[in-house]
C-alpha cells in the first residue's frame, strides 16, 4: 500500500472534514500507578489526557498551552503513536491511527513527525548529522533512492539554514539553536503533512529562539505544513499559532482562534494564565489586571470532582463541584469554553 492509497478519504469534495488533517475525538490516556515489585498491583491511574476532542486544519498551527503536568506532551505523543490511547479516536488524514500495528504505524509516520524539546538529548551523540537526518530514509527506503540520499540530506540541511558541508559533523560540534535545526531537518525528511513540535524553543537562548521560530514559519509556507505547537511560553504561542487550545489537568478548558484566546479569554484559568505572563514593558508595571492563583495544580491521579479548576478558581460555586462543565460555546463565550460562568475578561492589556 502506498502513502497515496492510505489516504483515500483525504479529498472528498464535500464537508468541512476535508480540511482537517487531524481529528481527535474523546481521546483518553491513563497511566497505571502500580505498587509491588514481583506482583504489580494497580492502585490508581494518572489521568494524563482525559477526553480531548479537537481538529487540526490543513496549513494551520494549533498551539497547545498549559502548565507542566497538564498532559500536553502526552497528547503530542499520542498523536505520534508513541503512546497507545486508553480510549478515543485519532484520525490522521481520515485514517484511524489509534489501533494500528507497528507496520501501519511506521507508514503513518510518513505523514506526522515530531520535533522534541531538548536538542541535546534528542540527537544521538555517536551519529553524524548526515546519519541523523538521513535515518528516516533508512526506515522508509522507497522515499529516496540510496544514491540520492546524501544529496537529499544536504538539501534538507540547506533548507533549515545549516551549512550542507557540515554533513559529517557530530551533534556536539553544534550550538543549541543549530541542533534544533538538525531536529527540524530530520522531521522534514519524509515530507510529512503534520509536525508535532513539543516545546521546540524552550531550551534555547532568547536571541536564538527567534531564529528558530522564524524558521518554523518559513517552512510552513514553503511545505504547506500543519503544526501542533506544544509550548508553555504563551508569548511564543501567540506569535506562531492560528488557533490555541488551553489545557488543564488533562482536559482542554478553552479553544479558539489566537485572537479569541488572547484578547477575549472566557475561562478563568486562561485568564489567570495570561495575566501571569509578564510583558517586556516597564511602563505597564502595576497597570495590568494580575490574577495571582492560590495553591498548586491538584494531582492528576486524583482530580477534583466536577470542574477540575474549581479548587483554585475565584468564581467557583456549588455547581462546579457537582457538574463538569462541557467544552462548548456559551451565551457569554463565542468560542468553546469549559466554564459554567464563562465571561470575557481582558487580562493582557493595561487597565486604567
Amino acid at each position: 500500500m502506498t502513502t497515496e492509497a492510505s489516504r483515500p478519504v483525504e479529498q472528498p469534495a464535500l464537508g468541512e472534514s476535508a480540511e482537517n488533517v487531524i481529528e481527535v475525538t474523546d481521546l483518553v490516556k491513563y497511566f497505571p500507578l502500580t505498587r509491588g515489585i514481583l506482583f504489580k498491583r494497580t492502585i490508581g491511574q494518572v489521568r494524563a489526557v482525559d477526553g480531548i476532542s479537537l481538529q487540526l486544519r490543513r496549513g494551520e498551527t494549533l498551539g497547545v498551552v498549559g502548565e507542566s503536568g497538564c498532559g500536553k506532551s502526552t497528547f503530542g505523543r499520542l498523536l505520534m503513536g508513541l503512546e497507545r490511547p486508553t480510549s478515543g479516536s485519532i484520525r490522521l488524514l481520515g485514517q484511524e491511527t489509534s489501533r494500528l500495528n507497528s507496520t501501519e504505524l511506521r507508514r503513518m509516520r510518513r505523514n506526522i513527525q515530531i520535533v522534541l524539546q531538548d536538542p541535546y538529548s534528542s540527537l544521538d551523540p555517536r551519529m553524524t548529522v548526515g546519519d541523523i537526518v538521513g535515518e528516516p530514509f533508512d526506515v522508509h527506503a522507497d522515499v529516496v533512492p540510496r544514491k540520492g540520499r546524501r544529496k537529499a540530506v544536504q538539501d534538507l540541511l540547506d533548507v533549515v539554514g545549516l551549512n550542507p558541508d557540515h554533513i559529517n559533523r557530530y551533534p556536539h560540534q553544534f550550538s543549541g539553536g543549530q541542533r534544533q535545526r538538525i531536529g527540524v531537518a530530520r522531521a522534514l525528511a519524509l515530507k510529512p503533512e503534520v509536525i508535532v513540535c513539543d516545546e521546540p524553543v524552550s531550551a534555547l537562548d532568547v536571541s536564538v529562539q527567534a531564529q528558530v521560530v522564524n524558521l518554523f514559519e518559513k517552512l510552513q509556507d514553503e511545505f504547506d505544513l500543519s503544526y501542533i505547537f506544544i509550548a508553555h511560553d504563551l508569548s511564543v504561542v501567540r506569535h506562531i499559532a492560528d488557533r490555541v487550545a488551553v489545557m488543564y489537568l488533562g482536559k482542554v478548558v478553552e479553544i479558539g482562534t489566537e485572537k479569541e484566546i488572547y484578547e477575549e479569554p472566557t475561562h478563568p484559568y486562561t485568564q489567570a494564565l495570561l495575566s501571569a505572563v509578564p510583558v517586556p514593558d516597564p511602563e505597564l508595571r502595576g497597570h495590568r489586571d494580575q490574577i495571582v492563583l492560590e495553591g498548586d495544580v491538584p494531582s492528576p491521579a486524583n482530580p477534583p470532582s466536577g470542574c477540575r479548576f474549581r479548587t483554585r478558581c475565584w468564581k467557583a460555586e456549588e455547581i462546579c463541584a457537582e457538574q463538569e462543565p462541557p467544552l462548548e460555546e456559551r451565551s457569554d463565550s463565542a468560542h468553546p469554553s469549559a466554564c459554567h460562568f464563562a465571561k470575557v475578561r481582558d487580562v493582557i492589556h493595561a487597565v486604567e
Partner: protein
Amino acid sequence: MSESVIASQRGIDVAALQRVHFDRDAPLLEVDDLHVEFHTRDGTAKAVNGVSFTLHEGETLGILGESGCGKSVTAQAIMGILDIPPARVAGGKILFRGVDLQKMEEKTRRHIRANKIAMIFQDALSALNPVFTVGWQLGEIYRKHTEASRSQAKAKAVELLDLVGIPAAKERVNSFPHQFSGGMRQRVMIAMALALEPDIIIADEPTTALDVTVQAQVMKLLSDLQQDYRMGLILITHDMAVMADVADKICVMYAGNAVEQADVHQIYSRPAHPYSKGLLESIPRVDMKGQELAAIKGLPPVLVDPPPGCPFHPRCTFARERCQEEKPELYDVPGDRRSACFFWEEVISS
C-alpha cells in the same frame, strides 16, 4: 554553660562580623572592574571582563544576558563561591559597605554569606540537600551563624516557612525537599536566603524552572519581602519580561562584558546598545500579535576565542570597520546611563 561558650565549642565565631568596620555611608554593594577567568584546556576564558555597578538599599538591579554571558559568574564572585580553580578572580574590587570582601578572611566572609549577602539559586531541587528535612536545612543557618540551640533553630525554621507562605508550616518543616512542589521549593530557597535578614539578596534565575502562574507568585513574594526589609536585590535573568516587572536599573551583559547600564524605563523604551535593542526586538509579546521576529543573526562568541574589537560586532547591524579593530569602552550617555557602543547616538535615535 552559656550559649556563646557552646557556640565557640562548635567552632563558630559568631562575633567575627562585629570586628569588621562597615561604613554605614558607603553604598551597599560596589563592584568595581571585576574580572573573572576560567582556565580550561582550550585556553583562558574571560567569563567576566571588567564589570562595575553599584547597588543601594531597597534597589533592584537586574543583570540581563543569555547563557554564558557571565551573569551567574558575577554573582558567584560576589558571594565568594566560585570554583577556584578553574576560576580565578583576575582583578577588581567587591566592596560591601566600603569593605573589600576579597581581602577578608574566609571565616569572616563565611558569616557575610548569610548575614549580609544571601543567594537564591535557580534549581531548588539540586540546591537543597535531599537527605535532610527542610526544617533541618533552614535551622542549620541559625546553628552555624548564631548561638541558637537546635530547638530554637527549628522554631525559627517554622517562622520562616510561614513567612514565605507555606501552608501548615509546623507540619511541613519535617518534610523532605522532594515532598514539595517546584514553587514551594523555591519558596524554601527564599526562606533560606531571608533567614538572617541579609542586606542583599542575589537571585539567580529564581523563576526559570517554574510555570508562569507559580512564577508570578514567587516574583510577587520576592518583591514584597524586598520592600518590607529594604533589601538590595540583584536579579539575574535572561527573561526580559520578568525583568521589566521588577528591576529599577539594568546591566546588560554580553560575552563577559557589561554592554549597557541604564534605568529600566530607558532600556526598554530607547536602548542605547545594539544588543539590548536586538534582544527587545526578538521577543514575542503576549499582548500583541507581531510580524516576523527580528532575530539577532549568528551565535554568541566562544569565550576562549572572542572576536577582536567589540565582542558583538559579528552579529551587529550597526557594525563598521572600527568595531572590528577597537573595543569600545563603556561610554557615558545622557540620562545617567552607559553604553559600550561607538555609535550609541545612532542606536538611540534609530
